[in-house]
């Protein structure tokens, strides 16, 4: 059965052009970029070309880009690197309650190391208020971290305004832009950030490579100790094929972001409107307008998320849910709880994230299939009184 993949926020298929670009670097141009001989230099050049491409995508200087093994590593690097390098200036970090686990868990870790963490609340749309950030700043604040776009509910944060607050107070500002770069404009100067994390496999690149943008002059400690790769910022033999793939993905994104953004937004809105029209007792989660072009997150009352996902899977439709039952921790999505959803609604949530290969016919198929599945599960539910 043909699969309809609508979980692009989880991961994306690598673009065929990306895979082609990567292939030579596994066996033919396989050298270690630190080696003096030509294999090494060839690999080094490939890495630097890729670096220029990703730098261009985010509007940074080449030497402000450090390749990492993932977006998660980039977030860890930013938070722990700033914290430990600036400990003499203060120990207070401000973040939001809807960050990705990579940021939240790094903060929890730092919390156990004598750092004080403020987790800012969000409004019903998942939006952080820049005024709340301002009020939370103290003489000991050394870092603010607020994500650019939320992976679960799609809300796009007012990063530009928050960065101005950070600048006025002389505090470093990090943003997790894993879900936004390549999908919506994400220029480091316009955003005004000091640090920005990105992940290749969220924009049609390979898994196993990410990057941290570090504004020139930022005082930060390296996360991985060892060799002097990445100008001393990240020890490890470079993942040359991965980095080359990342560069290619960035190159494609520069060309495609605008047109793709418009196309996807239209399909996203068709899906939202169609669901609202054909199924009652549903709620759109996240901001209706300040929202990632590809994200649809809805709560369906009276039924549970994993049950809906399993049924959709039977029809070849692949999506995810914020239900507790589907997580190994058995806790409902912290993002849905943070925006004030009661647990039952959080358990009944579905996330559809569209991408480059999503077609209108696929959206139509979802609109045809979902009401039937919801109807079947509601008939079984003790919470649904017809």
């Amino acid at each position, binding site marked *: 059965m043909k699969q309809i993949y609508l979980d692009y926020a989880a991961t994306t298929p690598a673009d065929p052009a990306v895979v082609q670009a990567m292939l030579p670097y596994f066996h033919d141009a396989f050298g270690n970029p630190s080696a003096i001989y030509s294999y090494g230099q060839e690999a080094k050049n490939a890495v630097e070309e890729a670096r220029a491409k990703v730098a261009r995508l985010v509007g940074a200087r080449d030497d402000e880009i450090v390749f990492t093994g993932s977006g998660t590593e980039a977030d860890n690097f930013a938070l722990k690197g700033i914290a430990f390098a600036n400990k003499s200036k203060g120990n207070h970090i401000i973040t939001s309650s809807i960050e990705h686990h990579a940021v939240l868990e790094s903060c929890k870790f730092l919390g156990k190391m004598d750092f004080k963490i403020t987790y800012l609340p969000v409004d019903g749309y998942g939006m952080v208020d820049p005024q709340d950030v301002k009020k939370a700043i103290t003489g000991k604040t050394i870092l603010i971290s607020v994500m650019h776009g939320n992976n679960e509910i799609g809300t796009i944060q007012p990063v530009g305004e928050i960065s101005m607050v950070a600048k006025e107070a002389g505090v470093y500002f990090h943003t997790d832009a894993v879900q936004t770069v390549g999908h919506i404009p994400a220029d480091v100067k316009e955003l005004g950030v000091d640090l920005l994390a990105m992940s290749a496999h969220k924009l049609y690149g390979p898994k196993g490579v990410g990057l941290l943008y570090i504004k020139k002059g930022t005082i930060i400690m390296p996360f991985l100790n060892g060799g002097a790769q990445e100008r001393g910022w990240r020890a490890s033999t470079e993942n040359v094929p991965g980095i080359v793939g990342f560069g290619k993905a960035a190159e494609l994104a520069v060309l495609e972001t605008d047109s793709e953004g418009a196309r996807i937004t239209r399909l996203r809105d068709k899906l939202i409107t169609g669901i609202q029209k054909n199924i009652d007792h549903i709620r759109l989660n996240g901001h209706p307008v300040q929202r990632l072009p590809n994200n649809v997150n809805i709560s369906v009352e*009276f*039924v*549970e*998320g*994993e*049950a809906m996902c*399993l*049924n959709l899977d*039977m029809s070849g439709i692949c999506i995810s849910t914020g*239900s*507790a*039952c*589907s997580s*190994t921790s*058995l806790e*409902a999505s912290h993002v849905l709880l943070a925006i004030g959803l*009661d*647990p*039952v609604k959080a*358990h009944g949530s579905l996330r559809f994230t569209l991408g480059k290969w999503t077609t209108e016919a696929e959206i139509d198929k979802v609109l045809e299939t979902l009401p039937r599945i919801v109807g079947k599960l509601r*008939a*079984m*539910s*003790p*919470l649904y009184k017809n």
Partner: protein
Amino acid sequence: MYSAKVMDHFHNPRNVGEMDNPDGTGHVGNPVCGDIMEIYIKVKDNIITDVKFKTFGCGAAIATSSMVTEIVKGMSLEEALKISNKTVAEALGGLPAVKMHCSVLAEEALSSAIDDYLAKNPDKNTDALRKLHKTQHAHSEEESE
């Protein structure tokens, strides 16, 4: 993640629905953990002659409630009270460790339905039944005290 048997019970649940004038109703679970089960039984001469269920929950929750109703239909109350969550999980070909709590909920929903029946019909309660309630379902007893 799920065995073929679990998927079968999930996609084709047995005994789903409501019952007119059930003799006993069991309601367990809570919205916070995301599973709510209701089991309805019809009892004649201490035999479960009919049983139905409704569940709000994941694949395992629906499968375990379906399986428990299939197992106990036609059983005496005594036999039904001996059904443990392990029996339900085994009948389904096993459950992932993180989903075992769903089978516990199914056992508790059934026991709660039988409890309800016996509370409404105390003359049908027997020493044998009382004993089973004490040992097998001690946690339910503690909660109601």
